[in-house]
């Protein structure tokens, strides 16, 4: 395989022809060689689905690379930039597969259609829960109900409480990942400010939960 610097990659890929074909083939091999490392926490290379996934990721990545070639600014190695795109493509697909059967409603709502804040209920946590912690939980619950919009509550409960990837939450809420991050950021900020108004620092509350 030809060893190319950033400039050579751009020059080989920018014009249709045999050099572009060779560069695309090399790039495909480079992407494929990185995926087993990138995805080691997600899927084993010996998994029967790995090869099909890797091929699909390589193909989608090459299309995206060619589409975005003019936006590459050369601040990293070209191959690192390509790997970044491949990782996004691969994890997007793996997250989609992992969460495909789970709806936002079942994750975030009670049977009555209200936001499920059971993690803040003082029942079910056992007798070991200190009174101070139980008080703090009902306090947090009230702040969440009073300060956050329905959308913010849904996003926080799905992503932060139930661990649904924000990309998956965003898809279900018909928002972009950026917009959803901003929604959650705004929610955290509101909660922080409200806690400050009530003389509660998150650090102090945290300390109450570290004990016992």
């Amino acid at each position, binding site marked *: 395989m030809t060893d190319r610097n950033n400039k050579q990659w751009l020059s080989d890929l920018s014009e249709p022809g045999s050099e572009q074909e060779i560069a695309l083939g090399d790039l495909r091999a480079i992407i494929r060689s*990185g995926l087993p*490392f990138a995805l080691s926490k997600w899927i084993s290379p010996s998994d029967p689905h790995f090869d099909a996934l890797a091929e699909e990721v390589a193909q989608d990545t090459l299309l995206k690379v060619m589409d975005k070639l003019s936006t590459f600014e050369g601040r*990293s190695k070209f191959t690192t930039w390509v790997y970044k795109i491949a990782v996004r493509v691969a994890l997007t697909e793996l997250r989609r597969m992992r969460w495909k059967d789970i709806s936002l409603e079942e994750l975030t709502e009670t049977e009555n259609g209200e936001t499920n804040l059971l993690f803040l209920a003082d029942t079910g*946590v056992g007798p070991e829960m200190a009174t101070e912690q139980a008080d703090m939980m009902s306090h947090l619950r009230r702040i969440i109900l009073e300060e956050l919009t329905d959308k913010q509550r849904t996003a*926080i409960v799905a992503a932060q409480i139930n661990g649904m990837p924000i*990309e998956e939450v965003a898809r279900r809420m018909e928002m972009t990942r*950026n917009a959803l991050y901003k929604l959650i950021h705004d929610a955290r900020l509101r909660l922080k400010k409200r806690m400050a108004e009530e003389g509660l620092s998150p650090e102090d509350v945290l300390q109450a939960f570290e004990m016992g």
Partner: protein
Amino acid sequence: MESSKEIIKRMLTHIAQTQEKELDCGEVYQVVDVFAEAIARGEDPTELLPMVKHHLELCRDCGEEYEALLRILEADIS
């Protein structure tokens, strides 16, 4: 299965770390390759890109993508 306590502790940690201004996922995506290369070289890019590290700690999606990218760079195959 996470306990209620663990969930609350994570939520409080995130609230404690919340800044008035934070980068969004798109802004972090623009520079995460530069950030990961610096880490892989053993440098500390947090002085140059302090808000990136902050976002990677708070956003699990971006954090997972950064770690996956770093695993490739540290495997030294390119």
